[in-house]
């Protein structure tokens, strides 16, 4: 199973000048098809065109998942488990498609100003929050303001809003304009995440203490009761009238309710599915993956998240990784596919690209830039001056040994056994090239501190889920060099900065220009070996075949259950 996931993210700060832009209403039919050499994004995600069978009304299901959020208001913090459950009771302004375009949701249509700085949304009329409050322009404004309020402690705003958000203008009851400081072409897909789900202003005004327990949205289900350590009870919203344009069911949910059950032990979770105690589970454990696929009573849905995936940050600011040849040699020596395969029993694909194959504008062109090649790795290390070897077979240069310090959190929730096996596989592989990789377990809190101090690490595992390729900007831009948890690879590359800023300034509808720029960014990152990609974040849903119509939305991999029904 995946490490207990953390946060996804991305921030973005676009600079510079103008961009054209304008309405992208109503359409998932954009220009993605014309984009050259860009693989289809959001693998495994998106609404199906059609589901066999006739939907049946009624029934309650049990959804078994691993991690429990600490707060159910997804504006607080920004942890993945929050979005999965929030999707069930909150609606967002727009709904993202696998190719990165968006379709209407709470917003019927929108226009983007030519300079890319003003997004004007026409809102759906007649929508009510489940506490009776009306959904309107004032409510949208209140949501942005609450998210930006420091007391909300949102990490989403830091990555997606603070760098670009200027203000919100209420133009009339159902028209709202968001003003940006800088153009930011992925703004719409970012808003599709449940992190930007719209909540009742009245409920938000109660403060976090109440809103964490019982957030109120306009969604297909209503958050009813949260028994910590056990489950969240969700009941059907009988008045639901605001499904996204891509939903198959344009009315209230078919199901009467969902029990959102926390089953942290992965074998318990899988047994709950096979015994029928759960109708659907999040993340089938790798050891049961094959069995599940061969079980005719289980449907397996796989989804590759957009973002950077799981990767190893290499500290570019200090020896030994401030030397391009050492970074390249390290990458060549690792044999990522074999390391991932052996650690995760073939359940996860490996990744050798800067962004995951599930990310809009991903290209597979640079996947084979550094295939496993020990001889070449040795040669590069020789060229870099690491020519001597000590008695342990570790390379040395001017009396220094080639040692990589790699701290990790000793919390098994953060680094589960399979993940640690992966680290050890990498450790064993690079030893062949004479690199001494030291894995340093640390208590969680100490680890987070070390994360912000490059002198504490040479290598460091991390991951980012984000709906947009612009995530590369937050983790590699010079502008974010000193921001905690952002540019942890300590990269300063003006050409990369320029390329990504140009993509941010592009017309959101001009997919071809963005594709070209994002491709160039991926090339720069891979060729400079700024980081070592490992594997994409993946969601694997196991679904009893009696439960029909479940799909995974592509911005954060949230399961969509408003289209689902229980058969017979």
């Amino acid at each position: 199973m995946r490490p207990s996931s953390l946060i996804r993210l991305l921030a973005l700060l676009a600079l510079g000048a103008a961009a054209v832009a304008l309405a992208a209403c109503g359409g998932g039919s954009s220009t993605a098809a014309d984009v050259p050499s860009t693989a289809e994004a959001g693998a495994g995600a998106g609404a199906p065109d059609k589901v066999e069978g006739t939907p049946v009304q009624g029934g309650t299901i049990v959804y078994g998942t691993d991690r429990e959020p600490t707060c159910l208001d997804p504006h607080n913090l920004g942890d993945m488990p929050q979005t999965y459950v929030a999707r069930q009771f909150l609606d967002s302004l727009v709904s993202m498609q696998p190719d990165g375009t968006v379709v209407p949701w709470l917003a019927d249509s929108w226009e983007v100003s030519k300079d890319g700085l003003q997004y004007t949304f026409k809102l759906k009329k007649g929508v009510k929050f489940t506490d009776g409050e009306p959904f309107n322009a004032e409510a949208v404004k209140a949501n942005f303001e609450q998210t930006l309020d420091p007391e909300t402690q949102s990490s989403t705003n830091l990555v997606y809003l603070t760098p670009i958000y200027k203000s919100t203008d209420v133009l009339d009851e159902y028209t709202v304009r968001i003003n940006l400081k800088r153009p930011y072409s992925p703004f719409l897909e970012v808003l599709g995440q449940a992190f930007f789900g719209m909540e009742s202003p009245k409920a938000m005004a109660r403060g976090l203490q109440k809103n964490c327990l019982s957030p109120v949205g306009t969604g297909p289900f209503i958050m009813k009761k949260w028994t910590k350590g056990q489950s969240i009870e969700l009941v059907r919203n009988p008045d639901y009238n605001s499904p996204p344009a891509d939903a198959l069911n344009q009315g209230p949910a078919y199901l009467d309710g969902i029990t959102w059950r926390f089953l942290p032990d992965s074998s318990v979770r899988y047994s709950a599915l096979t015994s029928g105690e759960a109708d659907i589970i999040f993340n089938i454990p790798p050891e049961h993956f094959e069995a599940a696929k061969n079980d005719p009573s289980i449907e397996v849905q796989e989804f590759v998240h957009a973002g950077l995936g799981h990767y190893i940050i290499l500290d570019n600011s200090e020896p030994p990784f401030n030397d391009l040849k050492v970074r390249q040699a390290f990458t060549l020596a690792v044999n990522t596919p074999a390391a991932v395969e052996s650690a995760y029993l073939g359940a996860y694909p490996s990744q050798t690209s800067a962004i995951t194959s599930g990310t809009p504008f991903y290209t597979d062109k640079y996947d084979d830039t550094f295939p496993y090649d020990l001889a070449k790795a040795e040669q590069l290390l020789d060229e870099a001056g690491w020519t001597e070897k000590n008695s342990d077979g570790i390379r040395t240069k001017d009396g220094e040994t080639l040692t990589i310090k790699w701290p990790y959190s000793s919390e098994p929730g953060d680094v589960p056994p399979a993940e640690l096996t992966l680290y050890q596989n990498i450790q064993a592989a690079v030893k062949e090239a004479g690199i001494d990789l030291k894995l340093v377990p640390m208590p969680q809190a100490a680890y987070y501190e070390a994360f912000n101090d490059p002198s504490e690490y040479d290598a460091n595992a991390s991951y980012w889920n984000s709906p947009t390729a612009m995530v590369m900007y937050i983790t590699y831009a010079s502008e974010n060099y000193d921001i905690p948890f952002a540019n942890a690879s300590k990269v300063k590359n003006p050409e990369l900065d320029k390329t990504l800023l140009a993509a941010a300034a592009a017309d959101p509808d001009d997919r071809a220009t963005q594709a070209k720029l994002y491709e160039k960014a991926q090339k720069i990152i891979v060729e400079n070996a700024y980081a070592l990609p490992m594997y994409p974040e993946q969601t694997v849903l196991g679904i009893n075949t009696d439960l029909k119509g479940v799909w995974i939305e592509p911005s954060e991999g949230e399961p969509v259950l408003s289209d689902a029904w229980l058969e017979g």
Partner: protein
Amino acid sequence: MSETPSITHGGVLERPPRRRLPWQTALKRLLGAIAVMWAAATIAFFLQEISPGDPALSVLGGSGARPSQQQIDAVNEQYGFNRPVLDRYAEFVGDLAQGDLGVSYQYKQPVTDVITEQVGPTMVLMTVSILFAWIIAVASTLISAGHGRLRSSVGSGLETFFAGLPQYWLGLVLLVVFAFELGWFPVTGGTSLDALILPALTLALPLAGFIGQVTRDEFERGLRQPFALSARARGVSEKEVRWRHVLRHALLPGITLSGWAVGATISGAVIVEVIFARPGLGRILVDAVSAQDLPVVVGITLLLAAVYVVVNLLVDLLYVIVDPRMRSSMAVA
């Protein structure tokens, strides 16, 4: 039968009668309890204080948030993390004295709410486990002790085996066999009654091993004591000797052990609650420790300290009930 009588458990003969008034004893007990709680709170506070890590980061999402410096500053301001440690300690003790345990860093809820919500399932689990442990231990003793060397050895061997079982392993085995394979119990029952059996057994079996061992030793010793002999001489049936006279005598060390068992079940609950997906304090405590959620850690620590105080009191009372010899001394002690 070489032991001298009445050494094993004190009793009136060894204890000079004390002439203190009961309310003095009660007051002393109360002060002792407060001191224990205060010490527990203080130790928890300073342990968290010296452990590495930034509390602002735990507020901003422990399990992996990536907050901005501005947010970290705002939280430090809001929670007063930048103030001198003694200031914060003084405020902490002041709040505690008023029953205010503060607000959880993780859940943003008052700690008392978090604990109130979670305390029930853990207490039920703890009580039922200790009850199971006692039933198993007493049954094992009655069935096998004093019935010849072979039966006794088998009983004693089983107890040693159970006492050595790691709870994590035992929990998984019980789960796999009785829930996954045989389907006798739900896999994900949560707090339902049928879902209580396996977690309670997970905690009870090792405990029964420990309690059984001491009870058996005491039981076999009791069988050879003069009071057993004199009962037999009075014509009391062997069954009655075993059940009424010797068993009562043999319970005392097990009762002492039960005080310790409360602690053992709480640490075991941490594992059991995760495996069996039960809500409860153990799970919350582990999460709180790893997320450095100081208010919750302190709150649960205090509650456990209070439970210990109460349990030790109960153990003393049980002694009196089980061993009539102590009544006169306790009445004035």
